[in-house]
């Protein structure tokens, strides 16, 4: 089967170590994760992972079943790009003098819908959001104008057809609210804890 981009969307408990648990499922099979984003979901207490990988559907389906086996995972979906609305965000740091002097740069930024976040006398930070290819093109173009720093965020995606699950998790959280995460309260209190 042909490999292609799949976006895996997971709904999980917000427990410590989830990233490790999930990433281990990929690394065990020597699958490269193209990007990974974690964030709260629309339902408080439930976390959302968005993972981008390049694999065949058969492999992705099996991966999702293995992921769903994890105790803290509520649901795993996989989708092709066509089934999603997706975006990646990028930040660019460019010398301000270049922008000020070169009209072509300004045109370029306008063309890609980039907007300034910070303008200082020495540099300016722009941000843009879009598909990977657009961001890559802009990155390449800015490379010629002294691009100082560039960072691209992980893919985030909305599943076009996800109404059913949204209702389900809302109901799920309403019926049984998520437990609090217990964090280590003692790390900064070394001197006051007796040890042997």
């Amino acid at each position, binding site marked *: 089967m042909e490999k292609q981009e799949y976006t895996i969307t997971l709904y*999980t*408990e917000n427990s410590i*170590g989830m990233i*490790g*648990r999930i990433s*281990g499922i990929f690394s*065990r099979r020597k699958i490269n994760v193209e990007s990974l984003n974690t964030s709260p979901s629309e339902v408080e207490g439930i976390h959302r992972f968005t993972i981008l990988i390049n694999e065949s559907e058969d492999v992705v*389906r*099996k991966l999702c*079943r*293995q992921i*769903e*086996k994890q*105790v*803290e*995972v*509520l649901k795993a979906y996989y989708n092709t790009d066509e089934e999603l609305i997706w975006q990646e965000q990028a930040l660019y740091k460019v010398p301000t003098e270049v922008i000020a002097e070169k009209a072509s740069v300004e045109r370029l930024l306008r063309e890609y819908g980039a907007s300034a976040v910070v303008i200082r006398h020495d540099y300016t930070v722009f941000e843009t959001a879009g598909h990977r290819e657009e961001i890559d093109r802009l990155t390449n173009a800015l490379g010629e104008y002294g691009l100082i720093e560039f960072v691209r965020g992980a893919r985030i995606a909305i599943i076009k057809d996800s109404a059913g699950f949204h209702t389900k998790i809302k109901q*799920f959280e309403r019926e*049984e609210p*998520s437990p609090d995460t*217990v964090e*280590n*309260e*003692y*790390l900064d*209190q*070394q001197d*006051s*804890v*007796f*040890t*042997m």
Partner: protein
Amino acid sequence: MSTLEKTRSKPQESTAPKTQLSGSQAVLEALIQEGVDTLFGYPGGAIMPIYDALYDYNDRLNHILVRHEQGGIHAAQGYARTSGRVGVAFATSGPGATNLVTGLADAMIDSNPIVCITGQVFASLLGTDAFQETDVINITTPVTKWNYQVTDATEIPSVLAKAFYIAQTGRPGPVLIDITKNAQIQLFDYKGYEKCDHVRSYRPKPIVRKEYIEQAAALINNAKKPFVLFGQGIILGKAEQDLKDFIEKGGFPAATTVMGLSALETDHPLHVGMLGMHGNYAPNVMTNECDVLIAVGMRFDDRVTGRLDKYAKQAKVVHLDIDPAEIDKNVATTVPVWGDCKETLPMLTQLIERHDHSAWLAEFRELEKKEVKEVIQDELNPTSDIMTMGEVIKVLNELTGGDAVIVTDVGQHQMVTCRYAKFNKSKSNVTSGGLGTMGFGLPAAIGAWYGAPERDVVAIIGDGGIQMTIQELGTIMQFGAKVKILILNNEFLGMVRQWQQLFNDKRYSFVNITSPDFVAVAKGYHIEGNKISERKDLHTALKTMLDHDGSYLLEVMVGKENNVFPMVPQGASVSEIRLK
């Protein structure tokens, strides 16, 4: 700050109000509430508070001090396998916890319900490379069904309840709870123990879909050559009788995986043997002849399927399994029957028609004759003076009648035992199937005995494997498990040697292993023993071993270069199984 102050003073029962417990006491209360009576472990610095509490629970919890944490967890596995209950192991932080890893991996792949409790350094020291600190949670994540680190004692009751629930529901597996030392010491208001009956993000078993049961029944009812494969799922689901009802009504020939052994008595007229690399000839060949393959509680391991692209391609496949991730993982199914086979098998039995497939069954018996002639006859009744492993098992069968718990290690002796041992009763086969852990046998047998002390427990172990965990003789010496240890000594790491002979032009690379005087070693541990190398002594020696009231070690010298056949060579199809 108040909780930290508490960690400085040890709990003192007399002064503490009744509702105040230490984290350690809460751990032991949890075990008692979960019905644990026996546990296996080894103390150390970071788990000392729990062991201190154990001092007062000695009358209610039988703690077996093993000689190595690996022995502890294998014993817990053996206990789980013969008792059907959760096996519990304690270990300290750092090396204690890392020594559990092999057992966790073994329990994970063989679906054993295990709860491990490890001590951990103080929460304030986490991540500082403290003495005996290891990141146990991250080390064990891929080899546990669930794990969790407790840094606050108030969490202990609910976390342990969750641990026991997760370990034994759905597809069972090992759970590890790592408890920092401050949490073990910390006093808290104990509000009692509440068993866990669900975890919101965890679905132990999928919902049974009736339409799949109907589709499966239709397929099975139209089958001319139906063939049932069953695995450990039958034992874990306590569905032995349901399997029997199912195959008897349909008249289906049924074959077992290594892990499924003893789920159906060996002598059952529809039992056609064992599948897999060293399984029986007929079930392997017939896998590629049947028209409907009905797999129940098994996972199509590569040792069972051989080459996948030539595996049962002619057959429609019905797969009954509790773990949705197993369906379509290795073998594409025609009808997936998701669910606990304890529920799905009776539903299916109800819908299938009573059938007589005796002509089809006779085809299995016909092929079996070929295996008897070319392999089994010589193995069980050898003409040479040199003893075979098979004949030892044969005499053992005669003496136990098939009622004993048979524990094996890993290698040739394991395959021979799985092939020839007779089982009358479920939960009688304890072996490391998925992971193939050498050194599993002796400690697992100790645990198996505690799980079923009324039964004879015979550990059949090779001369290689016994040397991996031989220190557990000390556990037997100290606590008196009446384990019979039968060493089949061929003076080689036999299975690797067999492969080197068959596939590496007999280049025997480091398979020649020498052994100590095992009987003398046993004597050193005050365990009776005997060694034989002649056939005339076999029957008496085995009888003496079984009759002895207490543990006993019998070493039997067998042929050095005997091979286990039949064999499905790696990369071959199951129907290309070799008889020699």
